[in-house]
């Protein structure tokens, strides 16, 4: 192959999936000349797995991305077929927004946004080499074009050495029939990156008109639609009329699966990659939970202009013919036609323990990783990392300080900290159980947590920031009003009695009424006659702040303690064997992972509380580099 010098960029992003897109948008918007490579322009922002965005913890991530000035939420608000707030009634910390997306429309908007964003160039090319130069990086395309960049962000998803497995059949492939990136892996290894092999999978796609939907249980969206983007707060996003359908497997389905288990590549050993526990294939579920008489499936629309539907819960790597047989056993599916066969896919990805919390590779300045390439799973997890990698690559170009989010600030921070501190042995998915600050990190207050930072970085406009400040000024004013609005016991006796709430012994404030679990803001309108008209987003904050004040306060105190150690920064070049008093195991782990802060060090397995104290004292003696939040 003859190489030629093609162009020079500030930042090159490899892969235009959800991670690559956010990375490229952030970098370009922060003023960096950015090129975004994709192996196929028709796969920009693709959703090769499920056609939905959000869900538990993932919805939180989308909100956080939006609060920082990312793109995902805004586009999701334009393309939803169905929108639901999951977990209503289970508490604000776990409310989770999820939409079914019009997949093509999402791709079109993302692609067009990339085409029209200043400083951003979108280019179809397979990247086959990555080389370190004196001043930065060179990347080489399949056709020999050499692009120079100060920073490179790898966001190659499941393309690296991708291999699809269906039953006995296996062949090299990227997701959704795209061709795989077969040459880059070797070059990354040669560079010195440690790679892992992961596996994931997707269920079959079914032709809508071949299913008797009358035998299925429809599921509807919510009204009014809650937007993902804080920019759309209070706006009408249009109708929410498309249905999903609920259907169950039965004994017959399970019999077909059991009879064909020997043909599953998982059980025959054909699959080497490590799959995620939370995306079990249907054969996995049947084997592991043999006593369950049925498993729940959802048939979900994939677009306004297509009859192709996604059968959530039916992931499989059984042979195609078995998939057909399994499918026919479902009620309403006796004539169902598969449009795309379910498959498992294996791919190469980087061990995230090589990354700094900025998502830059510790040993390779200017090289960043994001998304599935870093060992995660999910569009939202990918987009979140892309955004942070993009911001940091841009800051690096501009000579500005790198941005890291700590665990107490966000799910994004928790995700990245888990990845770079603990690593992962399966594709990492965000769950609310991963956060110890769940009551603080709610999807409703992502703006309060992150928009000031997004503004400071430069991804939030003056206008949006002003609106944000006005919103929280109103919240503060209304909280004050509730504290100073009093009722006599007689004024509220009927209301309290109707909700089985204890009568007020003496005068009671509106705030105290709101603190009672059985009462809420809307209900109290009956007695609170002079209340101002306020947007729902404002009253929601007021209500949560009051009702959960005790819990929020406690977690705030915990977070404050936690941050003390997070802001004790450790020097990147410290040789831990020279630190007196550290145990040998701790020295080795610390030398390998080179934590950014004492806080991060404390979460590394093998580093004891005593080691942490030793580090603190060492710091006091030698550096005293304390950054303030």
């Amino acid at each position, binding site marked *: 192959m003859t190489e030629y010098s093609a162009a020079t960029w500030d930042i090159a992003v490899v892969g235009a999936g959800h991670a690559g897109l956010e990375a490229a948008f952030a970098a370009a918007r922060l003023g960096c000349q950015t090129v975004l490579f994709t192996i196929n322009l028709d796969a920009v922002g693709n959703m090769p797995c499920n056609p939905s965005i959000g869900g538990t913890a993932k919805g939180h991530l989308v909100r956080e991305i939006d609060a920082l000035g990312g793109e995902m939420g805004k586009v999701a608000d334009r393309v939803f077929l169905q929108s639901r707030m999951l977990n209503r009634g289970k508490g604000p910390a776990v409310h989770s927004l999820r939409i079914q997306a019009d997949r093509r429309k999402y791709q079109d908007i993302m692609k067009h946004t990339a085409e029209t964003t200043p400083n951003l160039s979108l280019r179809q090319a397979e990247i086959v080499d990555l080389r370190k130069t004196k001043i930065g990086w060179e990347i080489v395309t399949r056709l020999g074009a050499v692009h120079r960049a100060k920073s490179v962000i790898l966001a190659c998803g499941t393309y690296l050495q991708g291999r699809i497995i269906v039953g006995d059949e296996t062949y090299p492939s990227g997701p959704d029939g795209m061709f795989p990136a077969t040459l880059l892996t070797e070059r990354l290894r040669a560079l010195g990156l440690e790679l892992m092999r992961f596996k994931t999978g997707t269920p079959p796609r079914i032709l809508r008109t071949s299913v008797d939907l009358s035998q299925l249980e429809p599921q509807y969206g919510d009204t009014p639609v809650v937007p993902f983007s804080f920019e759309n707060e209070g706006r009408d996003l249009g109708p929410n009329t498309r249905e999903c359908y609920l259907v169950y497997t039965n004994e017959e389905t399970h019999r077909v699966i059991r009879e064909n288990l020997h043909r599953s590549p998982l059980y025959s050993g054909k699959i080497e990659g490590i799959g995620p526990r939370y995306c079990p294939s249907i054969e996995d579920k049947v084997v592991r939970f043999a006593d369950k008489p049925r498993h729940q499936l959802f048939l979900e629309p994939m677009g306004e202009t297509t009859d192709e539907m996604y059968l959530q819960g039916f992931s499989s790597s059984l042979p195609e013919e078995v998939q057909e047989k399994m499918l026919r056993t479902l009620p309403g599916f006796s004539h169902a036609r598969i449009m795309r066969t379910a498959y498992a896919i294996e791919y190469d990805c980087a061990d995230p323990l090589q990354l700094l919390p900025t998502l830059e590779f510790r040993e390779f300045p200017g090289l960043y990783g994001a998304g599935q390439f870093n060992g995660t799973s999910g569009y939202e997890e990918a987009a979140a990392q892309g955004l942070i990698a993009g911001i940091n690559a841009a800051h690096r170009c501009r000579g500005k300080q790198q941005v890291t989010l700590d665990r107490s600030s966000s799910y994004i921070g928790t995700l990245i900290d888990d990845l770079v501190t603990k690593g992962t042995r399966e594709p990492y998915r965000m769950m609310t159980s991963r956060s110890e600050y769940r009551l603080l990190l709610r999807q409703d207050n992502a703006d309060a947590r992150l928009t000031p930072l997004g503004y400071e970085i430069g991804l939030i406009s003056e206008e949006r920031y002003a609106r944000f400040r006005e919103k929280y000024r109103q919240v503060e004013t209304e909280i004050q009003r509730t504290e100073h609005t009093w009722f006599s016991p007689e004024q509220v006796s009927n209301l309290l009695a109707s909700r089985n709430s204890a009568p007020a012994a003496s005068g009671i404030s509106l705030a105290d009424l709101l603190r009672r679990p059985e009462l809420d803001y809307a209900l109290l309108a009956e007695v609170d006659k002079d209340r101002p008209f306020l947007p729902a987003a404002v009253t929601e904050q007021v209500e949560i702040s009051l009702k959960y004040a005790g819990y929020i306060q406690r977690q705030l105190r915990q977070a404050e*303690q936690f941050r003390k150690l997070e802001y004790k920064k450790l020097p990147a070049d410290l040789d831990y064997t020279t630190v007196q008093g550290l145990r040998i195991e701790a020295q080795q782990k610390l030398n390998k992972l080179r934590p950014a802060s004492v806080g991060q060090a404390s979460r590394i397995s093998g580093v004891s509380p005593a080691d942490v104290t030793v580090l603190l004292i060492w710091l006091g003696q030698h550096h005293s580099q304390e950054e303030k939040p």
Partner: protein
Amino acid sequence: MNHTIVALATPFAPSAIGVLRLSGPEAFLVAKKALHFFSGALAEDCPRALAYGALMDGDRELDRVIVASFRAPHSYTGEDTVEISCHGNPFLLQQALCRLIACGARQAERGEFTKQAFLNGKLDLTEAEGVADLIAADSQRAADAALAQMKGQLSARLEEINTALLELISPLLAYVDYPDDEIGEIPPEELSLRLEDCLSRIRKLLASYSDGRKIRDGIATVIAGRPNAGKSSVMNRLIGYERSIVTDIPGTTRDTVEETITLSGLKLCLTDTAGLHQTDDHVEQLGVDRTRAALARAELILWVCDGAAATTPEEAAEFAALPSGAKKIVLLNKSDLGIFRQTKEFPGANAIVTVSAITGDGFDQLASLPARLLLDKPTENGELLCDLRHYQCLCRAEEALTRAVKNQRMTPDVLLADGEDALAAIGELTGKTVSEQIVTDIFSRFCVGK
């Protein structure tokens, strides 16, 4: 993680004064819960303050104390600090420490006050280096100790609590984390039962704690009685050597005298006291007052009376007035002179023994009694919780679950927060991290995910 810490700042040995030091963001809060002030208050509006009050355990007064408080940053550690000067009885100090932990403080790790002081810029490097050495040396010992501790019954019991907590949390978390999967809501009654189950397991283990302490630190035992009944002779007989000055002039012992002995394996912290009677002598009266104070704190009272003399109404009244919380053994002394008493003269006595402090008669019989009376409820399997750190972690777990019980009408997200706090507290003992445990548990228990 609780960052308000408490520890004994003076040696754990009998002394005139013992100082407990509380430090951290909630030091004042904890102090206010545990103390009742007679005069003065905490340094909430000024850099430092001195106050006088009582350390309370519920309605019970543990001790009269002097309270010095320092508002951050005007303290040794640089954080809000409260120093409580108690009387220097190890058993009392231990109780006081437990009380402060129950009020929300956490037992300080070795060197932790100094660490805080260093972190807040209150110490110079030389001092800090000393702490580093101390901690480095300590970590191996602590690791060895922890390993030894984790073997055996206690570890099994903690494991059971851990499992019970997981059974509480996992379904709740699966229910919120997997709304699409068929995971039903846990009915409120079921949730209550599981909470109560966890709580009762924790409380049971906590209850075994006082026995553990009793064995380790001894029983507060007071020798009391009318003047010249032979209390000091009994004490001396028990100790095996002459400590008190024994005379036959009533009222010789004006102060309280303390000693530790072991009877049938149980450690008794003996306090010999001035005889109880009405007196005009001012110094003697002070002694009598101290006796009463000692009795108020006693777990075991050895009531010594002159068996050779008849019961007087004053003596009957004094005996009846003994604190009801303590176990009482009546020693009918001077058996060598003949016994003229009836057992029914001592209502409320747990045992009556005829002894002679002069000849030593009856002391064999006495020897086994304290253990029988005080350790009559060994926990199942005989395992005992005897480590303060374990105790305080369990206290935190209990506190979190108590909060959950109280807030059952709140949404599942906050119940989870409480449950996880409890699991985290137990995790500090078992070394398991909360998040990974729960995630693993959910995947093994529920068929979730798409």
